[in-house]
């Protein structure tokens, strides 16, 4: 891979090519070492690994705190993503198609959770909702994750909506469709790529979230990232490498789904202006 990059790069510019290769090394190589150490037969995290085995994968899969955390993470990510879309899509429609004053301000408001540091949001929810209002941690987590995902739902589906010709909906109305029917038969299919992108992004963002999930965790409900962080703090064995490798494999599957449905680069194009 880096050979290809440097070969095409060298033809153009040797300095740029070298920097690019360096960049890829920093981005990718540590991840490869995680995978390599996960297959060790020994009991310490070292490289090169002491022999090959799948033993740590077995342990990771059987380790009940991780298992419970995975279930919690999935549950939370699915609910928060669904809720964010359910709330965010109507907001997008109102902003893009409605006649409201201060649309830019309104959109800015819904994007604001992206601007405030997540750790600050986490602290706010922990202090005000969990301690202040005595909400249970699952409700607080769901509230927080949903608020965090709203920007994706509003902006990414908004980008799809902005691409759709407003005349399509009018055409449907003119042909006899009620407003609801025009939305379901014409607008919703137009929003499909945006909904898939926002859904995937939202799911991944919630699943991987550390700051909120860490501050709002309790013994009863805790997601995978804080569970893994805790484990690394306590003991330093290759089980986390195995768990990480499994997370990596699952992420690859998500990436492939993303590529097949909407196109990988497009999904992330949506969040960066």
């Amino acid at each position, binding site marked *: *891979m880096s050979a*290809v*990059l440097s070969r*095409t*790069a060298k033809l*153009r510019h040797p300095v*740029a090519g070298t920097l690019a290769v360096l960049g890829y090394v*920093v*981005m990718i190589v*540590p*991840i*490869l*070492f*995680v995978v390599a150490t996960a297959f060790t037969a020994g009991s310490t*995290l070292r*490289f*090169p690994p002491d022999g090959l085995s799948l033993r740590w994968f077995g342990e990771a899969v059987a380790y009940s705190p991780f298992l419970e955390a995975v279930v919690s993470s999935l549950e939370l990510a699915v609910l928060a993503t669904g*809720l964010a879309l359910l*709330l965010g899509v*109507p*907001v997008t*429609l*109102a*902003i893009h198609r*409605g*006649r*409201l004053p201060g649309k830019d301000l309104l959109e800015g*408001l819904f994007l604001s959770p992206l*601007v*405030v*540091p*997540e*750790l*600050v*949001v986490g*602290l*706010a*929810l*922990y*202090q*005000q909702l969990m301690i*202040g209002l005595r909400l249970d941690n699952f409700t607080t987590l769901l509230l*927080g994750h949903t608020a*965090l995902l709203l920007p994706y739902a509003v902006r990414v589906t908004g980008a799809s909506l902005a691409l759709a010709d407003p005349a399509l909906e009018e055409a449907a109305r003119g042909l006899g469709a009620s407003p609801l029917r025009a939305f379901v038969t014409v607008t919703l299919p137009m929003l499909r790529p945006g909904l898939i992108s926002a859904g995937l992004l939202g799911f991944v963002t919630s699943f991987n979230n*550390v700051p909120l999930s860490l*501050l709002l965790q309790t013994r009863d409900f805790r997601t995978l*990232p804080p569970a*893994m*962080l805790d484990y*690394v703090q306590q003991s*330093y064995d290759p089980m986390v*490498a195995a768990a*990480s490798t499994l*997370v990596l494999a699952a*992420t*690859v599957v998500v990436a492939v789904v993303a590529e097949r449905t909407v196109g*990988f680069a497009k999904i*992330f*194009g949506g969040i*960066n202006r």
Partner: protein
Amino acid sequence: MRARSSLLLLLPGLAFLLVGFLLPAVAMLFAPPGVGFAQVLERMATMLTDPYDLGIIWRTVRIGLIVTALCVVLGFPIASLLARSQSRWAGVLLALAIFPLLLSNVVRTFGWLVVLGSNGVIGQVLTGLGIVEEAPQLLYTELAIVLGLVQLFLPLAVITCYSAVAQVDPGLDEAARGLGASRTRAFWTILVPLSLPGIVVAATLVFAGSVTAYTTPYLLGGSSQRLLSTQLFSYASVTVDWAAASATAIVMTVLVFLVSGISTLAGRKGATA
């Protein structure tokens, strides 16, 4: 769509945003439980004069600046090579650069424990080759944090710069070459200035991410290399010092807003100049 139905679409999302984000954030910053705003201000005043606290702020900003510089220096070449490449590998390499964005921060950061740890790759290689007697202390250093953060935010820099470069007409490079500019001159006089707004956005995103990131300084910095984020977490959940937590949160948020504000202003000035 009439104003009233737009409002109906908007309200559920707005209510959620208020309860799940805006109100708690405002309440936490200005009136933590049992603590008045005066105490938060007082704590902030000591933070801005106390050498220990100032040291943490300065370390956070310094690391943020170094990471931002490295991400631009490594990310822009990758972006420009990929955006200008005709190779079919360019798409694969772009996907490879974006993929880490989907992958859990915990997993990505964990890779550096494997690389930099006392039994890690670098230590093993150095002692194995007899270059050093004992593996050097790489973990829990500023260098470790910088490496971890560059790995974390380089993908963001790459795709932001990529969309900026892709918008620059390749004909302009060719025109510059035709007018006698060398490849390097054309790069510095055409591509860089025209992609500058994108580079500024990338730098802002990376800086904001670096000064608020938690996982990386927690895993790679340990307790000796405290940053604002790890400090905030410890105020919130270890010492439960609400005034200090709020003060730290304000400093962090102001830092991020300040930099985004400056970059927005710079962008606007650049657009009119």
